Structures are given as structure tokens and as C-alpha cells.
């Protein structure tokens, strides 16, 4: 009698565990799906692919993100209207923090048009193109031609999406400034 009871309890526990595992797996699967639909990386999400080249063929990869110097990253493409609106702000912020922060622009275009654009628009920061644009877009989850302003320091990302307003640029400047103060 007692043996039968024990078996029943074990069975119930096993069913409960199985149910929890399945629920967790489903939840995780759903979470992954939701994450994939977000058009940007979350704050603590790892950057897996970061292979970029400049005009001279110099390559930078995600190791450079883990250097001590904080990075300011602007992601844009030339036919993107919000990006063009952001360019004066980006130029200005890159100029302001020239000595404290390393700034790079990532243009999601063919290298030729990207570097021609760089020449035309007198940018204050160096420009790179991804070695593999589609992979970069996939890994960074840039589904649209969305302007992204990222401040990356000590593994923490501060992200601004779309058109920048003066207030959001002021906030970005304060974040950079407070980081420098902390150092």
C-alpha cells in the first residue's frame, strides 16, 4: 500500500517537473521570438558579430568594444531620412567628446556609396562598413533603416533609436559626461 503511494507521489512530482520544464522551454522560445522581433539589441544582450572595415581596409571587430575607451557608435544608411536628420547632432557630439570617447559611424550601404557619402558630408568621425551587411543587420537586429545612437562603455549600452531631439542628445551628453566623471 505504502509502496503504491510512494510511486504515485513520485509520478506526480515527475509530471510537475516535466510541466515546469516544458513551460520554461516554451516561455524561453517565446521570449526568443519576442526578442528577435525587437529591432535593436537589449541592454545586456551580447554583440556576436561586429566585423567592420574602413576605406583603407582596416578591420575592427567586437574585441575593440571591450577596450577601456568608451565608444560612441552611430548606425545609419544613406537613403535613411531620420539618419540624415541626426547627422548634424552626431557630428556635434563626436566633436564635443573627441578626446574622451572613440566614435565610429557604421554605414549600412555598399562600400563605394558609403565612402563617397563620407567624403561629401564632412563627418567628424571615421566611418566603417560591415564586412557582411546582411549578417550584421541580422545579428544587430536592424530590420529597418533605423538610425541608432549607441554609447558603449564597460559592457553597458546606452541606446537611442530614430530621430534625435535636442533633449535626447543632452541626455546622451550627460550619460557620457557622468561616465567620464566616474572614471
Amino acid at each position, binding site marked *: 500500500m505504502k509502496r503504491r503511494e510512494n510511486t504515485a507521489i513520485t509520478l506526480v512530482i515527475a509530471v510537475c517537473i516535466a510541466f515546469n520544464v516544458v513551460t520554461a522551454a516554451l516561455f524561453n522560445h517565446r521570449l526568443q521570438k519576442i526578442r528577435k522581433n525587437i529591432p535593436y539589441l537589449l541592454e545586456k544582450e551580447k554583440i556576436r558579430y561586429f566585423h567592420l572595415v574602413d576605406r583603407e581596409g582596416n578591420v575592427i571587430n567586437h574585441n575593440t568594444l571591450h577596450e577601456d575607451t568608451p565608444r560612441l557608435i552611430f548606425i545609419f544608411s544613406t537613403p535613411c531620412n531620420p539618419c*540624415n*536628420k541626426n547627422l*548634424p*547632432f552626431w*557630428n*556635434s*557630439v563626436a*566633436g*564635443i*567628446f573627441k578626446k574622451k570617447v572613440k566614435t565610429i559611424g557604421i554605414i549600412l550601404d555598399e562600400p563605394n556609396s558609403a565612402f563617397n557619402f563620407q567624403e561629401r558630408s*564632412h563627418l*567628424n568621425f571615421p566611418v566603417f562598413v560591415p564586412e557582411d551587411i546582411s549578417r550584421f543587420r541580422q545579428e544587430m537586429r536592424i530590420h529597418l533603416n533605423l538610425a541608432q545612437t549607441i554609447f558603449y562603455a564597460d559592457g553597458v549600452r546606452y541606446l537611442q533609436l530614430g530621430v534625435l531631439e*535636442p533633449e535626447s*542628445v*543632452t541626455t546622451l*551628453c*550627460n550619460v557620457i*559626461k557622468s561616465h567620464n566623471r566616474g572614471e
Partner: protein
Amino acid sequence: MLKTRIIPIQILILNLLLGIPLFSGNNTDIVLNPKPNLIEKNYGELIVHRTICGDLGNDDVYLFSPFDLAGDADGHLWVFDNLQARVIHLDKNLQYISSFGRAGNGPDGFSRGSMGCFVHIHVGQDRHIYANDITKKVLKVFNPSGDYVNSVPYRLPDIPEPPTSFRAVDKKGNFYFLIRKGNRIFVVNRARKPYFDIQGEKADFGFLYFKPSQAFLTYYQIPEKTDVFVLEERMYLYLKNSSVLYIRPLEKGTSCRRYLLHPKNALRIYQTRLEEIKKWPDSYQPFFIHFFPDLDSGKHFYLHLGREPDGSRNLLYKFSNDGNLDEVLFCRDPQGSFTRFRLKMNDTFYGIQDEKIMLYKEKQDDN
């Protein structure tokens, strides 16, 4: 025969007795300075004294993109930032005091396009801040604390247009607009009452070695091609196409002096520039880019010529109020940059280079 000879003499005597000007017309009180000294022999170098950019020591306001500068009687600096649509007030030591303005449609709002706001500012002698919103065609007036006072739209056809950088306000707060009728410019007050007028002369273009194109014959297109400034009791009216300056005391009945400002080297540079733009028929190039008086002494004024053809020096001409050229100042801009000089105050020249405000001082000789 005798009668015909006598009549002009009689008219002359009558005119002298009655004090009537000899040739009736509105320009009879304009006196051409006989021979101003325009020899470019004294050269002085301007060196960068300080740069203001970005951080103003305040967490609320940064300087992103200065568009125009103005100075007041206390030596304070007012900056219009075209990305933020803000007027920023800095003290004599360039410490942040306050800021006002925003992008938008409200009374204190400035219209913003994809390249920011195009607003020129000026601090009048009445200490009010005059912001000329070129896109919206409105002149907005603020008091020194940044409170909105009123605005004067000039979009309507019967409202006269102020020049692009509107700087014609007297001590009482009266401001002067310009209207053009043919080749004549009328300086009028807000109620369109003519203050004085000047007649355009084709002879002013005698320095051009080719027949002036239509772009130049639209000599009196006011908004872009005329600089007007009221300082103390004088009005300066500089015509950028022909490089003619009129200086007239605000007091009525006083004579207006007219100076042809064509220094030899500047003329050569200007002609080189014209040669470059000749292929575009409607292109336009002012002789001197910008006019501004010396706010310290009021005895001099400056005309910014711009870069030499070889790009080595950025030239600024210093004239005294009697039309004589005192000195040619120059600075050396880094490659790919260009300083637009806007103001001279506190023995310092203020200019805008890229996204920075550059402060220059004259280089002192070691001797």
C-alpha cells in the same frame, strides 16, 4: 544770351540764401568721402585665444551648433544654436548664464528644418534680443531675461523685409527695415515711414571688369545683400555687391557719408572668385562676406573678406569710421575649416568654425 547766363547765377544765389540743396532729390545730403586711404600695408595676425564647444559647464544645455553670435553692452555673448533652436546667454568670461527658445510653433518657437533653424540674432541698444527667423519670416523680440515680448511678421507683401542678419535697432527700440523700389533703397521704420533713401548707381560696379550679370543688377535685393547696423547714434548700411558703405548719424539733418570700399588686394581676390563662379549664370558672390562694427570703441568697423584663393589666410579688413583702411587682419584656419567672423568685443574677435565658437586675439609683437 545775357539772360540765360544770369538765370543760373540767380538760382544759385537764391538757393544759397534759402538753404535749398542745389540739386533737388533725396540724395543730396550724401557726401562721398573724397579719397579714403585703402592701401593694404599693415598686416596683423589673429591667433586663437580660446575655443568654446559642447560642454558649457551645465547639465541642461550644451552647445551643439552655433549659428549666429551677438554681443551686448556689458560684453556678454549671445549665441543661437541652430540644432537646439536655443539662444544661449554667456557672460563676459563665457560662463553659462541662461538660455531660452525652442523649436516649434509657439510664440517663442523657431521653425526647424532638416538642417536646423536659420535664425540670426542681435542684441539691440535697448538690450532686447531680436531673433530673425528666416524660414518663418518673423522677427521675434525677447527681453534680456529671455521672456517673449512680441513678434513682427514680414511675410506679407506690404511689410518691408529686414536684412538677413537684422541689426538695425536704436536706443529707443525703434527698428529700421529696408524696402526696395527699383534701384532705390528706402530705410523705413516699422510704420513704413521713410527715414532716408539711397539711389543705386551703376557706376558702383565700375570695379567689375565685365558687364554685370542680372545677378549683380539685382543690386538691391535686400535680405541677403545688405548689412545694416545701428550703433550708438549711427546707422551703417553696407551694400555687399558693390561694397559701398553708407554711414549716417541717426540725427536728422546730418549728412550721410558714402564710401567705396575696394582695396586693391581684396578686389583682386574678389575678381578671382567671380571668375570661378562665372560658369553658373545666376550665381552670386558678395564682395565682403560680413560687416560688423567694433563694439568696444565704435570708431572702427570690420569687413570679412574670407579666404585667399590659395586658401592660406582668412582675411578681415579693419576700417576706421572715416573710410580709411587701418589694418588687414588674418588668421590661418586648419585645412577643411573656415572661420566666419561675426563680432568684435572685449578686444576679442568672435567667429564660428564648424561647431565651435572661436575667440581670436591680435598677435602682439615681441618688440
